């Protein structure tokens, strides 16, 4: 029998054995702590343990499972909350109370819950990996489609009738080409560090609509795309991720709280069960799965939580759903890598991070994509990762390496956050490479002028940042009238358009059509003001008339379902400016 030889924090060593394979899941000690094999030499096998090793002694047994770290995939995942290695936290609570005890094993999916299963295959059908053989309603909005394990295929030789089954009931039997029979239940397992296979990638051309103006209009993200949100503490990373998780038009949200605050996870749990999804009129929890590995939970499980989350997402993608993953925060994950690497005494690269940090990051982000799946449906996984740069310094390794592998970079700005301008996404330094891919969608589905207006709005902001350099030196009073106007209009864009109030009933989610009309009104205001200036009106007069404030407040004054009120606003702009004309 293999026994524990050395212990150093979460790292445990076993001496002189050839029984283990890399990435194998093992049970360590009398408490059967869950661990994973991370390195093997001829005389020593190293294991990282996902639970606290306090109390572990040399000589206690180490037992292999002969399988890599896997997740269980089946109905009952949505609406649930798991820790980093897919242990349901609610079941843990019933078992060990408010504090998580180590060595607790619980079933991932409820074993006694019955699902109303409809079989979609009949005897004699030939099934290949990833195809659907049964469906059942998992929540009010998600239909669970049971997929054949991607490595299996064969002829259906036995099918149970439709009816109520638990996850462990055999509902179908297939026979593969070697004559071996496989019993199919509602679930199967998949190793977390191996991407699930798909047929082919599709071009990226559909936006993930978030209802957040600065994102949808200025810095759009595509379904199947990747985005990073870097920001120092207090700049609103978590807040932005919450807004996206609440309102984006994905079918399913996987929210990974990786090394973050416990109270935040409680907040998500509480808030999401009270919120109604505008598209389905059902609670948001009906489409959300939470992975909570808070900062005080074991560090090795934190490393696993990211993989657990993305594997769950890929599974639902394979059913034909659109998934958005919120990973908060990938920096904590990178730090977990660093911590384990340090315990292994590996040679560090930048700032103590292991040299394989970039390759791990790219492996993670490359698991995003819009694909054709083996079930015959198209699905997508969009990854939105928060990055917490040390010392708010964006040149640190995690931010810099992430930047190389994502196509959307939403940089959160401290000075915007200080002024309580949320979302505090800096429009000058952030970028989205998807704007061109998505142009066609916006033109076809929103308005043919959408991209043109977007450019004009960006130009105004750009102009402002140039003028700001001058204003900082000599004040705004000396600017010529037309440049003063640019400054005023830019202020309208910033406070009236980019800034968005997450606590206002209308402003928290703004449909694309309203976003377009708001741009339209601002640009209309700009052109009318320019005309008024040519007729001798002073910018200070327009400011005094309160017209700019009137337009800024359109986000509150015009409800999302009353677009016709924009005409009234535009009419008001015209009459107000006419009234200012000098006699």
């Amino acid at each position: 029998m293999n026994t524990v030889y050395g212990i150093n924090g979460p790292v445990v060593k076993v001496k002189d054995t050839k029984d283990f394979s890399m990435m194998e899941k093992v049970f360590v000690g009398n408490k059967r702590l869950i661990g994973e094999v991370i390195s093997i030499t001829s005389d020593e096998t190293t294991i990282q343990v996902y639970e606290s090793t306090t109390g572990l002694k040399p000589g206690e047994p180490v037992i292999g499972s002969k399988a890599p770290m896997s997740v269980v995939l089946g109905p009952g995942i949505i609406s649930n909350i798991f820790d980093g290695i897919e242990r349901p936290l609610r079941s843990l609570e019933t078992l060990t109370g408010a504090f998580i005890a180590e060595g607790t094993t619980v079933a991932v999916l409820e074993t006694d819950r019955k699902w109303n299963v409809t079989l979609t295959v009949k005897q004699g059908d030939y099934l290949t990996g990833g195809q659907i053989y049964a469906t059942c309603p998992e929540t009010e909005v998600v239909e669970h489609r049971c997929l054949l394990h991607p490595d299996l295929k064969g002829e259906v030789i036995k099918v149970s009738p439709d009816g109520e089954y638990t996850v462990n009931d055999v509902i179908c039997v297939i026979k593969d080409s070697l004559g071996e029979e496989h019993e199919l239940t509602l679930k199967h397992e998949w190793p977390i560090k191996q991407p699930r296979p798909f047929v082919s990638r599709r071009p990226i051309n559909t936006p993930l609509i978030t209802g957040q103006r600065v994102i949808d209009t200025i810095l759009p993200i595509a379904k199947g795309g990747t985005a990073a949100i870097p920001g120092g503490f207090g700049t609103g990373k978590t807040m932005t991720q919450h807004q996206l998780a609440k309102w984006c038009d994905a079918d399913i949200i996987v929210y990974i709280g990786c090394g973050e605050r416990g109270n935040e996870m409680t907040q998500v749990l509480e808030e999401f069960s009270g919120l109604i999804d505008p598209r389905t009129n059902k609670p948001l929890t009906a489409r959300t799965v939470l992975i909570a590995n808070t900062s005080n939970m074991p560090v090795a499980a934190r490393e696993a939580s990211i993989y657990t989350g993305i594997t769950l997402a890929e599974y639902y993608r394979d059913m034909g759903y659109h998934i958005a993953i919120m990973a908060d925060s990938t920096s904590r994950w990178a730090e977990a890598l660093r911590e384990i690497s340090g315990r292994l005494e590996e040679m560090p690269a930048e700032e103590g991070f292991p040299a394989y940090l970039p390759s791990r990051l790219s492996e993670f982000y490359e698991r995003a994509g819009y694909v054709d799946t083996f079930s015959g449906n198209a699905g997508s996984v969009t990854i939105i990762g928060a990055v917490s740069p040390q010392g708010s310094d964006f040149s640190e390794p995690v931010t810099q390496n992430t930047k190389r592998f994502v196509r959307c970079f939403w940089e959160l700005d401290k000075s915007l956050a200080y002024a309580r301008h949320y979302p505090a996404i800096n429009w000058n330094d952030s970028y989205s490479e998807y704007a061109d891919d998505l142009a066609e969608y916006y033109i076809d589905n929103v308005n043919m002028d959408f991209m043109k207006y977007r450019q004009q709005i960006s130009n105004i902001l750009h102009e402002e940042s140039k003028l700001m350099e001058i204003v900082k030196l000599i004040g705004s009073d000396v600017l010529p009238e037309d440049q003063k106007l640019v400054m005023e209009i830019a202020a309208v864009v910033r406070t009236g358009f980019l800034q968005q109030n997450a606590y206002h009933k209308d402003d928290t989610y703004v449909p694309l059509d309203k976003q377009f009309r708001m741009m339209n009104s601002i640009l209309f205001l700009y052109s009318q003001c320019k005309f008024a200036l040519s007729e001798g009106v002073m910018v200070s007069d327009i400011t005094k008339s309160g017209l700019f404030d009137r337009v800024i407040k359109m986000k509150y004054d015009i409800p999302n379902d009353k677009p016709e009120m924009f005409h009234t606003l535009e009419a008001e702009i015209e009459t107000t400016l006419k009234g200012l004309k000098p006699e």
Partner: protein
Amino acid sequence: MALQYVGLNEINGPLVVLDNVTNAFYDEVVEIRLENGTSRMGRVVEITGRRVVLQVFEGTKGLSLENTRTRFTGHPMEMPLSGDLLGRVFSGAGKPIDALGEIYAEKSADINGKPLNPVSREYPRNYIRTGISAIDALMTLIRGQKLPIFSGSGLSHNKLAVQIVRQAQISEDSGEDFAIVFAAMGVKNDVADYFRKSFEESGVLQKVVMFLNLSNDPIIERILTPRCALTVAEYLAYEKNMHILVILTDMTSYAEAVREFSSSKGEIPGRKGFPGYLYSDLASIYERAGIINTAKGSVTQIPILTMPNDDITHPVPDLTGYITEGQIVLDRNLDQTGVYPSISILPSLSRLMKDGIGEGYTRIDHNDVSNQLFASYAKVQDARALAQVIGEDELSPTDKAFMKFGLLFEQHFVAQRPDENRTIEETLDLGWSLLSTLPRESLDRVNEQMLNEHYDENAAEKFS
């Protein structure tokens, strides 16, 4: 009788090595007896086969390879717990040092605690009125929150902490079941005395549990201090249903102790020599704040840390800010202009505030006032930057109004006397009066209705 090991094999800083040990477990506590009859406590930090690395809490001074007997106690580091802990004083390692004898323990618990299951947490919503305008209005403290004070050497963080404790405990709803756990890590004797005296003056000394690891006490004990303190706090909160306010000072000294220990173990250093696991280590302390759904009590933390060289990007404040739910930042410039408390408004924040204020908690206009104050004060900074370049006289009338607002805001809103206890109404009304000194159209974060109700054209006279 447990097995004793005579002698040691290696001594290196606070670490000693014993060979040929059987049956030791990870994190086990050991007792090391010296020939002169004194004993020291230690803990197993690494095991390789039969070789065990021990960390000695009181330091290794006087230890030699031959003059010791080491006994393995068979349990991890534990803290004796009972309802009689209130009013007692302990060393940093949890030993009573107030000459009142040992604790008659109802139970004892592992000082490392266990991670709190997120589904068992109750989301904190009840605000704690501190009577300090800047905090109550702009970075409201919520029961169950962890809200650190980021300070610098020589700033008034201790005074502020004492004022918070004194005024929070007399607010209406605190009731009988209120207690303070005070953990001093590497602070000067004077500072510990100052706290003790202040607790005495405000009549709460019998409600305080003190853990003192002063700056001349062994550094390894310092690593245990916050853990002992929080174990007591959790016990009182979750088993005795009390509302506990934990003050941890100074977290920078604590982190330096972790660094010293790490380097003596020969670990690979991360930023500024701190070990790569500093984040997880700090989190294992800060995350022990909260409320659970099976008990009435709560643990609220106010860690205090001094930013070396006032640098907020130093690893300790930086990592702390990522874990805690906001921060109160003190500012040296304000302090020098005589403003107490010298809270730097813009970088300060309370993340839990938004759900604990407004109708039903404080007042319906609270959120708007605080947003507007933040936004307007941010503009003050722009105006000041501009004034430095072109001179104050050249500013536009609006910018001048902001300059004036900034000064009034600092002198009347941020500043208050150390014994001044403002109600939330006073604070919010004061906020409106100050906002009213600005042109009405520059208040873009509040709606018309609010303005009609609270904007007072004649407010400026109040401050002349």
